[in-house]
C-alpha cells in the first residue's frame, strides 16, 4: 500500500520533471497575475499594501485552480484512470498520492515564491512571514478540495470553467482566513486564531477529501 503510494507519487513527479517548462507554469501564472494589479490601478504604496494580501491570496488560489486539471484529466483521457481504479490497492491511497504530487508541483512553489511577491507589493516583513505560514497551511487544502472538484468534472468535456464554478465557492473559507491572517499581521495584531483555523481545516480536509474524491472517481468512471 505504501509502495503503491510511493510509486504513483514518483510517477507523477517524474512526468512533471520530463517537461521542465511546465513545472514552472503555475508559478509564472501566479507572478503574472499578481503583477497585473499594480498595472491596472494607480500604484501608490499604501494602495498596493492595502490590496496585497487579497491580491496575492486570490492569485495563488487561481494558480492552483488552473493547475487542477493536471490532477486527473490526462489520466482520464488516456485511460490510465481506469487502470488506477482497477488497482488492487485502495483508491484513497492512490488519490492521496496524486494530491501529494500536485501539491509538491504547485502549492509548494507558490509558498516559496510568495515572499518575493510580498516584497513587490510593499508588504511589511512580519506580514510576509504570516503570508508564508498561511499559504503553507492553505495550499494543501486547495489541492485536496480541488481534487474533489476535478474528479466530479473530469468526464465533462470543456469542464474547465465548470470546475471553477464548483471549486471556487468551496475555496472561500480558506481565502478569507488566509488573506485575513496577512491583513491582521500587517496591523501588528496576533494571528494565532486564523492559523489555527487553517490548520484545523487542513486536518479535516486531509481526512475527508480523499474519501470524497475516491467516491467521486468511481461515480464518474461509470461510463
Amino acid at each position, binding site marked *: 500500500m505504501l*509502495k*503503491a503510494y510511493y*510509486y*504513483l507519487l514518483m*510517477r507523477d513527479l*517524474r*512526468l512533471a520533471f*520530463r*517537461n521542465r517548462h511546465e513545472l514552472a507554469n503555475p508559478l509564472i501564472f501566479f507572478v503574472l497575475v499578481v503583477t497585473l494589479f499594480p498595472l491596472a490601478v494607480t500604484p501608490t504604496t499604501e494602495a498596493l499594501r492595502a490590496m496585497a494580501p487579497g491580491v496575492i491570496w486570490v492569485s495563488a488560489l487561481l494558480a492552483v485552480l488552473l493547475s487542477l486539471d493536471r490532477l486527473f484529466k*490526462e489520466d482520464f*483521457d*488516456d*485511460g*490510465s484512470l*481506469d*487502470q*488506477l*481504479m*482497477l*488497482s*488492487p*490497492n*485502495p483508491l484513497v491511497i*492512490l488519490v492521496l498520492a496524486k494530491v501529494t504530487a500536485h501539491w509538491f508541483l504547485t502549492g509548494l512553489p507558490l509558498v516559496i515564491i510568495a515572499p518575493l511577491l510580498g516584497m513587490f507589493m510593499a508588504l511589511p516583513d512580519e506580514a510576509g512571514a504570516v503570508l508564508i505560514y498561511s499559504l503553507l497551511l492553505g495550499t494543501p487544502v486547495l489541492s485536496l478540495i480541488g481534487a474533489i472538484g476535478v474528479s466530479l468534472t473530469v468526464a465533462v468535456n470543456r469542464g474547465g470553467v465548470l470546475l471553477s464554478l464548483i471549486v471556487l465557492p468551496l475555496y472561500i473559507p480558506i481565502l478569507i482566513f488566509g488573506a485575513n491572517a496577512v491583513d491582521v499581521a500587517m496591523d501588528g495584531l496576533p494571528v494565532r486564531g486564523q492559523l489555527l483555523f487553517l490548520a484545523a481545516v487542513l486536518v479535516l480536509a486531509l481526512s475527508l477529501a480523499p474519501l470524497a474524491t475516491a467516491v467521486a472517481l468511481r461515480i464518474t*468512471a*461509470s*461510463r
Partner: protein
Amino acid sequence: MLEIQSLECVRDDRLLFSELSFSLGEAEVLQIEGPNGSGKTSLLRILCGLRLPEAGRVLWQGESIRSNREDFYASMVYIGHLPCIKADLTVLENVRALLDTRSLTVTGEATEAALAKVGLASYEDVPGKALSSGQRRRILLAFVELAGARLWVLDEPLTALDVQGVALMESMILEHRAAGGSVVFTTHHGMQLDCEMRSVRLGRIARSAGQGENQC
C-alpha cells in the same frame, strides 16, 4: 471463476441487454460478439466493475466483485479502447507505470523480454508521443503479458495492430490459456484461435427497451 448473473444494461434510451448470464471457468476463452453499438464495451466495463449495471451481479470466486475488490483486481487485467500511454514517459517507463498501479515488481530482464516479444525491442527509451498508433497498442500487450493476472479482459485488442501483431496476440492468448488462465475479449476482425472458444452474442442494435435479444 467469473460468474455473470442476469445483467441488464441501459444506455440513454436503449436497453442493450438484459437477463444476460454466463460464467467463465479456468482455461476458458470467451468472445463477446455483436455489431457496432450492441454493447460489447459496456458489458466489459460492467464486468470489471468500472460501470454499474442497471440490474444483476458479477461474481468472482462466488463473491460479488464490489465487496471483493482487492482480490478480484489482483487477479484480472483489462485493456480498453484507450491506450493508457503517457506522451512524456518512455516505452519502458510506460510499462513500469502500468505495472506499478498493480504493485507488481517485475525484474528488468522480464520487462525487456516482454517488450522484445511485442516488437518494441529497440524502442525502450522512445517517448510515448513519438509512437504510431500500433506501437502504442503494443505497449499494452507487454503490460498484459507481465501483469501475471489469471483473467484477461480485452476490448478490441487487435485495434491498429498489423498482421504480425495480430498473430502475436493470438499466440499470447493461447499461451495464457495453456497456463490455466482465462480470457474475455471482443473483436470485429477475425481472431484465429486454435482452441476451444465460447462466445456470447449481443443483440442487433435495439433502439428501444424490450427489443434486445441475447443468446448465450
